[in-house]
């Protein structure tokens, strides 16, 4: 009889897509193993505990799983109400990091908390805030994206983009662009608007590249320019700009079909690929587990994204769909960009591989977003 009522009374946990959480956890465990294999040799050589990085990653994964579980329980529609506040807080954090953050690798992007061995990267959390805020904003307009609305949405993206540009962190900026593109595209932006904004985007990028040639200040740092040159010309400066991408391809190729075996990869062990435990962790997998390992990993990711895609379709409200699309866009872009860069089909940008790369903020945020998607999937029966 009162089917809706009965549905209402049923626990949402019955509908939750647990497989997403399982896949995420599995991926994170693979990540821990790779964190170990890509650092143990050098750590041992330096007389440190070879498991330093792996242990820390285990801590991050544990926190991430807790966050994922926590994010599942609270009804996601509550997030929508606090979307603007969350957005504001994260933007403030992004401003603050420019003044109080610590600089690493030339970017001022991390907060260092006393007593902790790791830093916090506010830009990672900004991804969550922007996904929620953008989804909420677009959902409020009911999918009716006029030019003004689109402009406002662009503005919402422009603020974090500008703040991250000041750090600067080109890779993370691109993630925000990907999130915005995905959400706005699905939300119903008109084709002509998409074409026009794409053109503007291209002009801006070219302008940034050549800003110093056009008489203005250099907006792009030299390393970023070189990385793009190296991408377009793989033999450019093999000991410098092209070193990383060249070495990572060698490592992946050396893996062959079956891989060298865990802890056996020479490129991995001897630190020949820089940033191996973070952005280039995929090369460790490629070298030590070979084509078979890569296939398994890609299938796991594909399964995760497919489940998320189904959640976007089954969500009963637009906010849920758009938030899910935002998360989906973010994961897709990060996975494709990161793996693509290690294999030389994308330019090098500093983007972590979700669940695998060593790093607290990115791991926790990835688990949080998965929690959000599970949350949405659990409540698809609620109107």
């Amino acid at each position, binding site marked *: 009889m009162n089917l809706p009522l009965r549905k209402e009374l049923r626990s949402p946990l019955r509908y939750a897509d647990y497989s997403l959480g399982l896949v995420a956890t599995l991926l994170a465990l693979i990540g821990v193993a790779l964190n170990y294999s890509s650092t143990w*040799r*050098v750590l041992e*050589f330096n007389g440190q505990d070879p498991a330093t990085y792996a242990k820390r990653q285990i801590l991050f994964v544990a926190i991430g799983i807790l966050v994922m579980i926590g994010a599942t329980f609270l009804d996601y529609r509550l997030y929508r109400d606090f979307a603007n506040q969350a957005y504001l807080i994260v933007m403030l954090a992004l401003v603050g990091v420019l003044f109080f953050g610590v600089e690493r690798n030339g970017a001022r992007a991390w907060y260092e908390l006393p007593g902790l061995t790791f830093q916090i990267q506010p830009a990672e959390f900004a991804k969550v805030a922007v996904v929620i805020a953008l989804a909420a904003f677009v959902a409020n307009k009911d*999918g009716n994206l006029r030019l003004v609305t689109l402009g406002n949405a662009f503005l919402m993206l422009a603020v974090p983009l500008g703040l991250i540009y000041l750090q600067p962190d080109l890779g993370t900026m691109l993630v925000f662009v990907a999130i915005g593109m*995905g959400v706005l*595209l*699905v939300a*119903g932006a008109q084709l002509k608007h998409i074409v026009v904004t794409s053109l503007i985007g291209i002009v801006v990028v070219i302008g940034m590249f050549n800003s110093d040639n056009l008489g203005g200040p250099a907006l792009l740092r030299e390393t970023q320019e070189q990385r793009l040159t190296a991408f377009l010309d793989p033999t450019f400066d093999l000991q410098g700009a092209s070193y990383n991408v060249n*070495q990572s*391809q*060698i*490592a*992946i*190729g*050396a*893996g*062959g*079909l079956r891989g060298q075996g865990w802890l056996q990869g*020479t*490129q991995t*062990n*001897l*630190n*020949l690929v*820089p940033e191996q435990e973070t952005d280039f962790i995929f090369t460790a997998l*490629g070298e030590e587990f*070979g*084509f078979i390992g*890569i*296939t398994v990993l*890609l299938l796991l*990711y*594909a399964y995760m*994204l497919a489940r998320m*895609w189904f959640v*976007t*379709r089954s969500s009963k409200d637009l906010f849920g*769909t758009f938030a899910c*699309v935002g998360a*989906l*866009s973010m994961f*897709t872009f990060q996975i*494709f960009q990161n*793996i*693509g860069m290690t*294999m*030389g*089909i994308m330019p090098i940008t500093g983007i972590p591989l979700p669940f695998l790369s060593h790093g607290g903020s990115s791991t926790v945020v990835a688990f949080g977003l998965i929690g959000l998607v599970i949350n949405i999937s659990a409540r698809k029966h609620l109107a």
Partner: protein
Amino acid sequence: MNEQLNRRLAFLGILIIGLFAALFTRAWYLQVLTADELSEKARANYVEIVIAEPTRGRILDRHGVVLADNIRSGVITVNQSRYAPGQIDFVLEQISTLTEIPIETLKSRLENQQTHPLAAKVVATGLDEYGLLRVSELSLPGVEAKWEMSRIYPQNEIGAHVVGYVGAMSRGQEDRLLQMGYLPSERVGKSGIEQIFEGDLHGKPGRTELEVDSTGRVHRILSQTDPTPGSDIYLSIDADLQAATESYLRQGLIAARKTVSDDSGFFYPAIGGAAVVMDLRNGDVLAMASHPTYDPNWLVGGITALEYQSVFENPYAPGALNNRAIQGLYSPGSVFKLVTALAGLEARLISPRAAFYDVGYFQIPDKYGCTGRCTFYNADKAPLGIVDLSSAITRSSDAYFYQVAHDLYWIRGDEQWAIQDMAKLLGFGSQTGIQLPFEKSGRIGDGDVKEALFESNPDAYNPYGESTQWLPGDNINTGIGQGFVSVTAIQLANAYAAFANGGTLFSPNIVEKVVARSEDRFGSSVIDFDPRIQRIAEFPEGSGVVREGLHGVTSKARRGTAWRAFEGYDSSGYAIAGKTGTAQAEGKNPVLQRKKEDSAVFVAWAPRHDPRYVVAVVMEEAGFGGEAAAPVARRILEAVRAYEQRWPDPQVAFIPPRPECPEIPEALRGYDAFTSYVPEGCPWGIQVPRANNPEDVDGDGVPDLEERSQ
């Protein structure tokens, strides 16, 4: 859920599938299609190979006198490629002021080395610690001051042509040597023993494979082998006798330059010559001199262009680097009459004691229908009167041997080439097989040789379009060692040794043994060069008369051709037998632009009745054999006598007996049961390739005797 949203989500899904397909394809490309190539790059990435240079072996004489050694020497190397053209001068100036080597010298050393243009070049050697310190204090880029093991030849030019020298590797051999594990800076043997025993002298380089990380830190040693030092080479020459031989040869040449030639009225040029002392009992070479000579030390540390020109491109001392004892080809002249005499006896044309009237010339009888030259004169047209075989040799009667050679010409059948066959039996016309590089084989003229020569280069050999047929005149000229005959000094010594010792023709040994210096075999000899017999000749009946003729060469009473040179020679127990030769050289002297003077030749053995040593002396454009070469040989023989007194213990006088080969019917020779019964070395026995087999030194399983006769 409206349609539009669904469509757009579907688009997103397809996009994601496309992106994953791209990743998958790329992974396939890298890990399956190009995996091998990338694996190789990965290996090159982390393996660093360190090569340790082995210590080069020494070269010593038979009693242990060191002829080539290694010393620690301070060297300065300059890498020119670090500097723009012209900028190097500043650097050289500073080095010049510190080392007091003139800047021109440094420059020419930099420019004249035949090495890779990017390689560092040695500009100065032999620096002491202080000198190295001063240069390294400059800290100039591309300039290195370091200790290096450097080759030194402590005896300087003594035995230079035998020992050879080392130098930077040439472009042609660079790739091959680097592959064998040589370092680009290493010096390799360029001539002589240094070259031919390069493999033994060099040793094995040490090789360490290290696993290194991106910052070059070493993680593991993958494999390590220590360098194996090169083996020592013990020569059969005696350094003192070698020094004496070289010195007497030089003095003889200088003396000849003060003598006026009767033919031309000029002084003899006497530009060069060779002398060989050989133990005729086992083929050991005790001394081998070649003039003009050089000091190999000059060539080790980079020679200046001026030095090089003055020494090696001097027109008055041509071919200083050539070992004339094995590379110089000379007409033997009357020395060759030994061959003609034996050939005549073999063909039974000569009755040893028959009288022959030497009228001073020989004319080809009319009945033979002479073409070409028909009358052949004695050296100074002097009639010697009545001679027999013995006195024809002692007094060197040309007419006698003209007659013999002419008569031999008209024999047909197996003995048609009796002179040539006898010459080949005594080792002329082929390499003796001494362990030195670039040995010439010489030439024994017959019909084929003449035809081939005339056809290959008619302008040089046959300017007047003469017949390419072998004419009586050709055989007559050959009979006294002129014309189409050319031999080396070592061949002369070897042939006379074979005649003196009763017929055993050796391959001369100049190396006695190769002694290992590696840890596990230190001091044990790797290769022993036992006497190597080429063949055993049987001389015809009447060769005793030939011997008797050779005995008389120093006798005034028998009017021997060398009696003046041996006047006052103490022949008690050390009398000699020998033969003089005066060979007309063809063509013009390229520097003086006048007809070449006669070459002086003298070959002798001693003691006369217990032959132990044979001496051969050849002097280019130095006059008569009896006047120029015989005095040199006399002094060398005196030195040999002194040498025997200095080392009184009997020298290796071991001639290995030939195996007795049982007769096995040909049909049974393939069967093990029979062949295993046959001693080693017999033609149908089991061939055991063995390095030390005296009959098969090259180790190819075929006894050298057979190889050479093929």
